[in-house]
């Protein structure tokens, strides 16, 4: 098995960048976890480590999705990428820009005074969670994304074979790009700052990214099982439709207590409570299709695809809905409960999504039909079991925190340093387990198709 169009191989560059950043993300995650116990353990303070952790996460997931798109669009349009050198240039330009941003974070971490105001904005770190990247970097990121989208649209225009999957995928990507813009201007008023900030954060993970996930899910089920496009695309439209019907107004679940009017309690509470529905539909979709499976050649690809659907529902849907009503969120807002949800949702929805796309497409990129799946499964169990325990640990810490700090009125610092100490220790231990899983996965990524595949008995 090999790729139909040589230019699809560009995906591999993005995947490589992604898995390396994944490793970095988890390494610094462990440092952050240890800093909960010993704040001074490392030369960089917690805020810099955390910034690196979450920015590496977002960037590698985006790189993975871009790589996946470079693979999917030629396949669906049945033609080569419109301009391969441009794609290559876009890749390297992105790597350079991201490297500069990271160096800036580290510099700022070592010497906060270096984070000067230049033309009214911070030079190295904007000091806004997830979108810490300074304004000049925003500009570079926008250019990179525009080049990427332009290249993909031109590819589609070459043959004009509009398919549902590629249409929804591109729609999701354009929506994603547009939703970066509300984070790119300064508001003097912190309420407005937070209001627009949530457009970026929420309308990414619960809007555009989930739309992209819906399209890629359909693509992967089609590739691994050979399920019928007609049926897959119909359910895909329904799923991503429901994602946006609930998710757009669901943004209101972040507008309960930040200075915005009270009517958001009703709107946010109602619509965000419905957000798990499309995610459940995706699980059903995956199972329904899998039941038709006859002879699946790429078993790990299918395995990760189904796992993605399940953990998307558990992490985003279940761990999301528990704290989404204003009556509950009033007590849990901004506690470890939020972190627990954040971890399981990102892992289930997007980490597993990108890894499944890698397992679904990499064999053909490397030109192999068969490969030894043992490491793929081993990595899955190490990562998933560790992540589940990290999340249970942090959910426990969150329950203790909500009870002692929010209900009983104990001091934040007292709860953190004494009552929750064991939870921090356990999280760090399970974090190392997660690192083992990631290492196996990354090793497998570099080995896949480059060693003789053992024949199955």
């Amino acid at each position, binding site marked *: 098995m090999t790729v139909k169009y040589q230019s699809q191989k560009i995906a591999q560059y993005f995947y490589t960048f992604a898995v390396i950043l994944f490793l970095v993300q988890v390494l610094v995650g462990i440092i952050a976890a240890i800093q909960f116990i010993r704040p001074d353990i490392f030369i960089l303070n917690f805020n810099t480590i955390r910034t690196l952790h979450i920015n590496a996460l977002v960037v590698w997931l985006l790189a993975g999705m871009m790589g996946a798109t470079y693979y999917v669009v030629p396949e669906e349009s049945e033609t080569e990428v419109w301009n391969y050198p441009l794609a290559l240039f876009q890749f390297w330009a992105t790597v350079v820009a991201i490297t500069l941003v990271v160096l800036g974070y580290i510099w700022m971490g070592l010497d906060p005074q270096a984070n000067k105001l230049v033309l009214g904005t911070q030079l190295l770190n904007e000091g806004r969670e997830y979108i810490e990247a300074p304004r000049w970097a925003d500009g570079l990121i926008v250019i990179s994304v525009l080049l990427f989208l332009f290249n993909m649209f031109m590819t589609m225009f070459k043959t004009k074979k509009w398919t549902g999957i590629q249409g929804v995928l591109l729609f999701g990507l354009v929506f994603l790009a547009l939703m970066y813009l509300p984070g790119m201007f300064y508001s003097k008023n*912190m309420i407005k700052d937070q209001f627009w900030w949530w457009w970026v954060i929420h309308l990414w993970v619960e809007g555009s990214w989930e739309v992209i996930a819906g399209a890629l899910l359909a693509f992967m089920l089609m590739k691994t099982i050979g399920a019928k496009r007609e049926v897959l695309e119909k359910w895909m439209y329904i799923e991503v*439709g429901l994602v946006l019907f609930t998710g757009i107004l669901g943004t209101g679940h972040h507008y309960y207590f930040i200075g915005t009017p009270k009517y958001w309690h009703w709107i946010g509470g109602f619509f965000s409570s419905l957000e798990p529905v499309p995610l459940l539909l995706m699980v059903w979709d995956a199972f329904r299709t899998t039941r038709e499976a006859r002879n699946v050649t790429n078993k790990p690809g299918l395995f990760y695809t189904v796992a993605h659907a399940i953990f998307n529902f558990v992490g985003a849907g279940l761990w999301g809905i528990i704290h989404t009503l204003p009556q509950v969120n009033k007590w849990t807002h901004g506690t470890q409960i939020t972190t627990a949800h954040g971890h399981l949702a990102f892992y289930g929805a997007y980490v597993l999504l990108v890894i499944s796309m890698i397992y679904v497409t990499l064999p053909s990129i490397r030109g192999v039909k068969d490969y030894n799946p043992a490491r793929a499964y081993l990595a899955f169990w190490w990562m998933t079991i560790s992540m589940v325990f990290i999340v249970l640990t942090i959910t426990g810490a969150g329950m203790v925190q909500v009870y002692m700090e929010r209900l009983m009125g104990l001091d934040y610092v007292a709860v953190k340093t004494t009552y929750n100490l064991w939870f921090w220790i356990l999280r760090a231990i399970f974090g190392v387990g997660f690192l083992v899983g990631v290492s196996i996965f990354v090793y497998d990524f570099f080995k896949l198709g480059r060693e003789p595949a053992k024949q199955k008995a």
Partner: protein
Amino acid sequence: MSNKAARNLFIFGSLFFFVIFLGLTVDTMNQIDGRAPEVTKEVDAGKMVWQKYDCIGCHTILGNGSYFAPDMTKVVERKPAGYLKQFLMDPRAVKPTAAMPKLGLTSREADDLVAFLTWISKIDTNGWPPKPMLAAAAGVGGKEQTRGQQVYQSQGCSNCHNINGIGGTSGPELTRVGANGKDAAWHVKHLKEPRSVVPNSAMPPYAALSNDDLKSLAAYLVTLK
């Protein structure tokens, strides 16, 4: 349902909800200015300081941010302004066990930051953060309090100090403060002007209290053994 119908439902449905969302956004933008005091030059400068030092990398504010350090929404109500400024400039000089590093804020930056945090504390947050339910329940109708205990509560001493685990950790714990050999007279002096007995103390003076209140408070403190 045909694929085409499903596609149209997706496109036009999403558009429909986005338009509603835009409408609500416009309305919210119009209301926001009325839900907080005016943003002065100092508040704006303070916000820049907040961003410059990436405070949100450890703290939450309005409940959003990182969960490594306390929420900043009402911090100015819990800490006296003088204390806050000293702490921001050099945390461990006023609280040796502080996890917060010395970031190098100038005096000017600290003032602006306090202005920003004061502005934040005045936002109408629909009642967030909520008052601790159980502590409130225990405070009323419980056993009768001495005058000293009442003063301790009404002055908000527990914002910084804690007794038997209840209260803040900015100041020293007072659970056994009566066992350290200081008598009531020392306490009165200390309460009136902390720096007269503890050099560089970050505790604000309570000279405005009546003599009676000071004496009752001191009497209460020496009983804590």
